[in-house]
């Protein structure tokens, strides 16, 4: 199956997330901490 390109992903996020949920329930990573020191411009 072709990997959706970035634009397609923007529009199809809902469906893709649903598929991920069905196919890889144990793998669902629902939370991610972002370091506020890790993006240029964020103090």
């Amino acid at each position, binding site marked *: 199956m072709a990997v959706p390109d*970035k634009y397609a992903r*923007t529009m199809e996020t809902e469906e893709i997330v649903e598929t991920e949920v069905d196919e890889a329930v144990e793998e669902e*990573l629902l939370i*991610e901490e*972002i*370091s*506020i*020191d*890790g*993006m*240029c*411009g*964020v*103090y």
Partner: protein
Amino acid sequence: MSAATLVEQLKRGLDAPICLTWELTYACNLQCVHCLSSSGRRDPAELTTADAKRVLDDLRDLQVFYINIGGGEPMVRRDFFEIVDHAIGNGVGVKFSTNGTYIDAGNARRLAAMDYLDIQISLDGIDAATNDPVRGAGSYAVARRAMDHLAAADFGPFKISVVVTRHNVDQLDQFKELADSYGAQLRITRLRPSGRGADTWHQLHPTNAQQRQIYEWLLAKGDTVLTGDSFFHLNALGEPLPGLNMCGAGRVVCLIDPVGDVYACPFVIHDQFKAGSVRDDGGFGRVWKHSELFVELRRPQSAGACASCGSYDACQGGCMAAKFFTGLPLDGPDPECVNGHADTALGSVRVDLTPRPSLDHSRPKVFAQT
């Protein structure tokens, strides 16, 4: 979902900034040679206290988590505490950047008593001999005094923020010791050719060898030294530094300047990177969500001339401000490209055609160097 997806999501832009930099005033009692906002004299069109409170109300409604206040010297404004109180009272946290001149014992205690308030004191040398040629005669002593007052007032951990130059790069260990001695956090950031920095960048920016020195030092320090992801252009040297390698301009952050203009970030105060004004219909919210500039920045960016370089994933082509103000194309290498890919282009840049900052609030030059 991998970290790559997180970054992709953030690059598409958020419904509101995570935080934003707000330069409260172009007035400043110092005249640092590399000032990114070319500050010195107050602008007559500066936002009034009432204007500022309206902006804060907009930020509250957008749920911007906190603001990073700077300038010029923000404490020069007579309504500084009124503005800060209004922000905190409306659930917008305040971090601010200062040269420390106005942090006397009384103000230190006042600041220590406040809810969510973080302070960053600027310092560019571990002694007056290194610091003062950049920041002005007496500025080292003033900064140290401010730190002493904060310590005496039990403020808690503040930040010491250093712009790394050719002349202080050998002092990194000593800066860390200084921060440790106060229980403070050290933050080092990249010198950019922005504002007055445009005039001094070629003499002050680290050499190639020094860039490697900074990189190795940061790798060794891990998460104990903050960088604000300022050095992601160095990731092409090897193992990536901590951080997302991400330019947040127009995507997760932006700048509001003293007259209410909105720019992509504090390092690009230039018409080409101006998104609009808080005085426009719809205020800051409309500019953040719908300005042409920000919509454009949130589109996937092309690697351009960097596409054929194996380092692009690591360095993302570097910093648009660094490229813009050295006269380089935005879709090509950073002027400090560690692979040397900008060297030829830099050599043939027409200095007279290089973009100049759109605004200059510098005071007339006074020869005050030691």
